[in-house]
């Protein structure tokens, strides 16, 4: 009875005091330690994403190893070799003197490609050319995930060690974009492992639709060309050689066709997947001018160089997609858009050329899961 009365008294008088003191303590703590608390919150956010990245990276490695075992039938366990592959790096050329840097970059990329292919072939001896390309793509996606994880971990640990707000802040700010990219690579892994067409292959799919049923010949490394008659014009349709996962060398292919025809090409039409801005619809089609091609820039340079030599005009038709759709299995919206692009390309050819002209139509992108 007496105890309860004391408690009630405590409630009446002391609670107000306690709340006041609590308020002042919190106020003072936030004055002196506000930034530090904010930093810990940011670190925690990065930490949660890092766990997710670690999980995705491990899954990528597991998928790569399992696919190699399943397709390549290796004699020994390929895990160690896969781990070594994931750590491969490429050093870009020195560009203090930029003259000739494109050729140096091309050489380094060629060496890298040959090295990767040789490595995959020895890891998976029972695989054919198409499967080697698909396995290479799978390993590259796993390698990209490994790299993203390591970079984020580096900044997380550096931030924790130095307790520098700016180190932590810069990684926390770009984290949503990094996570989006990592998730895109994660969904790409299975697509590459199974050899499914991906969103990036939209351009190659349009070219495949154009050249299907026509005779094809190899024109450059991993690239094929078909001569397709259309409304009195001759169209040279170029794409990477499928159905294995590769992008070929469209720069060399376009250059070779131009040289074969001694520059007598009325126009070039390039088709590619392009990154869409937020708010734009998936599969939206846009038209413009210029070499529609991504990558390190070697092919774009070669195309522009050849076009300039003979003063050939260049048109581009792109299909809009985001990074996730570009590397994951082809979406229906993008597939449906390829038919509309086909019509648009035909329209461009009719508008920009006359009967008897020769045109080049190049479908750019990874041709995984797309034949010809």
């Amino acid at each position, binding site marked *: 009875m007496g105890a309860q009365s004391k408690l009630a008294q405590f409630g009446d008088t002391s609670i107000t005091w306690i709340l006041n003191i609590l308020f002042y303590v919190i106020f003072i703590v936030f004055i002196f330690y506000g930034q530090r608390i904010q930093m810990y919150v940011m670190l925690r956010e990065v930490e949660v994403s890092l*766990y997710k990245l670690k999980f995705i990276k491990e*899954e990528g490695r597991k998928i790569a190893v399992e696919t190699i075992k399943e397709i390549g039938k290796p004699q020994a366990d390929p895990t160690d070799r896969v781990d070594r592959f994931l750590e491969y790096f490429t050093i870009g050329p020195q560009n203090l003197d930029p003259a000739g840097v494109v050729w140096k970059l091309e050489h380094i990329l060629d060496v890298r490609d040959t090295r990767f292919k040789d490595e995959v072939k020895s890891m998976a001896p029972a695989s054919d050319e198409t499967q080697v390309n698909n396995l290479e793509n799978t390993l590259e996606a796993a390698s990209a995930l490994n790299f993203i994880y390591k970079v984020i971990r580096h900044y997380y640990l550096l931030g924790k060690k130095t307790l520098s707000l700016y180190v932590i802040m810069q990684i926390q700010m770009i984290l949503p974009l990094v996570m989006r990219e990592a998730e895109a690579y994660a969904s790409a892994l299975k697509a590459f492992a199974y050899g499914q067409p991906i969103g990036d292959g939209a351009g190659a799919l349009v070219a495949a639709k154009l050249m299907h049923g026509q005779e094809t010949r190899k024109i450059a490394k991993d690239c094929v060309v078909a001569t397709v008659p259309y409304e009195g014009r001759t169209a040279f349709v170029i794409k990477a050689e499928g159905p294995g996962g590769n992008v070929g060398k469209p720069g060399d292919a376009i250059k070779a066709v131009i040289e074969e025809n001694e520059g007598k090409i009325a126009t070039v039409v390039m088709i590619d997947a392009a990154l869409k801005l937020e*708010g734009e619809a998936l599969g939206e089609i846009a038209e413009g001018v210029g070499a529609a091609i991504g990558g390190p820039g070697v092919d774009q340079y070669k195309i522009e160089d050849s076009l300039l030599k003979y003063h050939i005009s260049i048109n581009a038709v792109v299909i809009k997609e985001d990074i996730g759709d570009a590397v994951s299995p082809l979406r229906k919206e993008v597939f449906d858009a390829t038919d509309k692009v086909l019509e648009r390309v035909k329209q461009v050819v009719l508008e920009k050329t006359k009967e008897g002209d020769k045109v080049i139509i190049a479908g750019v992108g990874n041709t995984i899961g797309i*034949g010809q």
Partner: protein
Amino acid sequence: MNEMTETSASTTTSRISSFVILVVFITLALSLVALIFAAAIVGGYFNTGNDLTGAYVLLALGLLGVAVSTYVLVETRRRLSKLKIVVPPVTTTIECRKCGVKNVREFQRGDYVFKETEPCQKCNEKMLITAIYREVKEKEKERFPF
């Protein structure tokens, strides 16, 4: 092969920071103490008829503390359970160019666009893979006036 593949996180407890767990449990304990105090004051009110303001404050603080700590615990578990790579189903469309028969099935390893497959059951002509894609059911999009 092309089924929905979901791989969930293997270890969960090791991924939750011990500091967060400690803070959550301290908050929970303090909130429970506040609730007990509030109950004691309410009990005293029936015997002595004292003012209940303190009880209300303690009750509010206690409930708030319990709610926040429970939310944090549930949210941490939910975040961890979201760790999975989901592979959507991909379909292959096979068509007979002669009689137009269309067949849609799940993607199988080795399928590619423009691959000739088994003969058509109707006209015995070789069928062709004409499409491989995935369909994604879009969630209700937030509407913007732009």
